[in-house]
């Protein structure tokens, strides 16, 4: 079976393309694939990719709930204060529970 193909369905994702989101700055508990360098940074949803188990569960073979994944786009300047090029960006993927909405 395809990794993201499953009989279960998660609730519809809470974010849509273009939404501003902040990556939560949570402690590293055992395992995650959300990188430290984006913690606390504000970016924009670039794509809603798929629904799947989260790494925090999968790492321990725990068949937990499914979550919506997103590709989030950041300005490099928002990740590294002294980054010298205004235009440059970085995209990374993360499941929903790592993201919180940012007010307009």
């Amino acid at each position: 079976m395809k990794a993201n193909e499953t009989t279960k369905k998660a609730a519809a994702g809470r974010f849509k393309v273009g939404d501003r989101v902040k990556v939560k700055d949570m402690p590293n508990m055992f395992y995650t694939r959300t990188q430290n360098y984006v913690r606390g940074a504000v970016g924009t949803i670039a794509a809603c990719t798929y629904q799947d188990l989260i790494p925090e569960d999968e790492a321990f073979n725990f068949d937990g709930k499914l979550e919506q994944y997103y590709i989030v786009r950041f300005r490099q300047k928002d990740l590294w204060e002294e980054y010298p090029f205004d235009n440059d960006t970085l995209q990374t993927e993360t499941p929903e529970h790592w993201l919180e909405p940012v007010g307009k």
Partner: protein
Amino acid sequence: MSTGHRHDHAGDGHADHDHDHKAAPMVEEITDYEVLEIAVRELAIEHGLFTAEDHRRFTEWAESIGPANGSRLVAKCWTDPAFKARVMKDAVKACKEIGLDWLEPTGSGTPSDYTNFIVLEDTPTLHHVIVCTLCSCYPRPILGMSPEWYRTTNYRRRLVRWPREVLAEFGLLLPPEVEVRVEDSNQKCRFMVLPVRPDGTKNWTEEQLAAIVTRDCMIGVALPSPGRTADVHPIHKARRPVQASVQHGSAAE
């Protein structure tokens, strides 16, 4: 530890070691992960999940995949806008049109490869480059095994922080008005870059075009250009090579 000279110091007590050649091990060190892989593989064979023959054939097949399908995909995107549109909509599905099924050979993809595939389209003002900062995630079903440098911590940790400097080390200097977009494939999507079709390729056939779309162009550390048909990285000779007299440290062993 110097290799090939262990028998000098291995404690067999024979000064005249030329008459006492023991077979030297091919590999002197093995990582925990390699031990784990062998253990799990042998268990799986013992329990009949697959045979040793299945494992050998699959390994040989996986190692034989090169970037040729990626080159063909790019060439076809350049010559067929309708195909490109289908790639942008669903790249896994579009790959079937060039004879590549991401679900092969198991029906669920190769065991360690996810089947979410996104092709990142460059424009004259946007340049993509891929990395996996966590490990070495790479679109293997279409590009084959990743190059050694792609898996180094050096590339992985520096590309996200100093992308233009790293690209410059590959010989790729981009003007500031071009947006450099780093794609960190740290979850289950796999990515490759669709570069801009270079000038000087008008009326080229798909085969001609595919020949200039090298692996590095699809990672994003090089740009295709007429005449550039291989990823050649310069080899710099050591400025102060190790002297023959100190090459084999004997005291430490």
